[in-house]
């Protein structure tokens, strides 16, 4: 590896992260607008034309807000928890292939890398909730730790079917294996359903947003956070949503592939945004699960069904050989 390669990798990394952060900033405007229109409201309208500058105003406000640190909190962990979350979510981007031959790092263990980082991301919520030294935060952290461990298993198992069909864990190879519209969502419909619901649980979104259920826990693990640190948690959640949507698109919906009249990266982004819209739609539609129902669903239904899916995929693969 010479100096040129290193400079090229640096440029790629900075470019992708910068563009990604702008997307993360504006997706919350998209969310507010989408949910507002579903509820016959207008959403933010004041800042800029139809509120397009609202995210910038919000960021400036959060940046200059007072950073309140609870007296009895565990300070080092309180400081480091949101940073763990953001780093884990943003570094998952490194292996996502945006178009043919373009990903920051073309890892052979791409899927495992993303699963590993999503499990590290869980520490942000658990440690943040614990370090705040408040009952609500603590309950949020405790719920989150159990929820994330349970649903990670189901999510990993649901992707095994994809790995078996493409014969690789490299995300670029998985997309190539779905060339000519042979998307894995058709043969792996069971795996996709489990993956999508487990991804909702992993990113703490409605209907599984129990760690931050505002009607019972104020704001869950983030209750004691304010200003910039709260914004980091917020960013980590939305970045996680992007990464999970991108993983769903790559593993089940053919990644960047699409009819030739649009460039591949546009197809990729359109598919990702369709998933993100689905997240918002679910948030505007469904009520929250009860906690014991959530755990029962994960352990008693998803894990057995995901295992059955693996066996079935293997059988069909042998029979078709």
């Amino acid at each position, binding site marked *: 590896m010479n100096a040129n390669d290193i400079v090229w990798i640096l440029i790629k990394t900075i470019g992708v992260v910068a563009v990604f952060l702008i997307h993360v900033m504006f997706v919350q405007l998209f969310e507010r607008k989408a949910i507002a229109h579903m509820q016959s409201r207008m959403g933010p309208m004041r800042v800029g034309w139809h509120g397009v500058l609202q995210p910038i105003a919000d960021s400036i406000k959060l940046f200059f807000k007072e950073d309140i640190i609870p007296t009895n909190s565990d300070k080092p*962990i309180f400081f480091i928890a949101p940073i763990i979350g953001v780093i884990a979510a943003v570094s998952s981007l490194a292996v996502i292939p945006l178009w043919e031959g373009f990903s920051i790092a073309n890892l052979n*263990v791409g899927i495992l*890398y993303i699963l590993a980082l999503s499990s590290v991301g869980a520490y942000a919520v658990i440690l943040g909730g614990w370090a705040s030294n408040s009952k609500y935060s603590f309950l949020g*952290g*405790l719920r989150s730790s159990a929820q994330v461990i349970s649903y990670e298993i189901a999510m990993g198992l649901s992707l095994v079917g994809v790995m078996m069909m493409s014969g690789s864990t490299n995300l670029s190879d998985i997309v190539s294996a779905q060339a000519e519209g042979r998307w894995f969502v058709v043969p792996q419909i069971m795996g996709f359903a489990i993956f999508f619901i487990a991804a909702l649980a992993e990113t703490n979104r409605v209907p599984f947003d129990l760690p931050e259920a505002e009607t019972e826990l104020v704001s869950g693990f983030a209750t004691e956070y304010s200003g910039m640190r709260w914004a980091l948690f917020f960013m980590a959640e939305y970045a996680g949503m992007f990464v999970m949507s991108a993983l769903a698109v790559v593993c089940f919906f053919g990644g960047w592939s699409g009819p030739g009249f649009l460039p591949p990266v546009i197809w990729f982004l359109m598919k990702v945004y369709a998933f993100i819209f689905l997240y918002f739609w679910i948030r505007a539609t469904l009520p929250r699960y009860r906690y014991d129902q959530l755990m029962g669903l994960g352990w008693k239904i998803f894990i057995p069904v995901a295992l059955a899916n693996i066996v079935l995929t293997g059988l069909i693969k042998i029979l078709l050989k």
Partner: protein
Amino acid sequence: MTTPQLFFAYFAVAMTALSLLIVTRKNPVHSVLCMLGLFIHIAGLYLFLNAEFLAAIQIIVYAGAILVLFLFVIMMLNLRKEETVKKYQAQWPVSAGIGIILAAFLVLILGNITVLPALGEYSIEAIKSEGSMMTVGKVLYTEFLLPFEIASIVLLVAIIGAVVLAKKRTE
């Protein structure tokens, strides 16, 4: 020093420091956080050693499952009241002595270990051409099939044992 040696030096210093922090922190949550850092460093070291599958497994299983289990138990027991001034047992100087002597022994014995030139078939190129996961899988499902099955039984026993032990007694 060459670049790989510099990288190794960083990893060695960081990992030793993190290990020391793990065993000397009063608060178990701080220990767990240091352990998380240590696991990430170990995964990095595995990447140097051409074992990317194990690096991913290290993070997924150790950091994602085992360490979260520790955190979960620490939180469930709610040990804030238990944090006392004394964190070591009475015999800790002896333990420190044993640790230092053991380290000195091992370093003296293993300090200049080298391998025999009779090398196996899995060279860096061979693993690269097939991918780390494929190579591990092939060996695991042919040569080590029986141990693999036994490992699954060990895990089953662990699941049942944990449920039986931690469940409430109803009489």
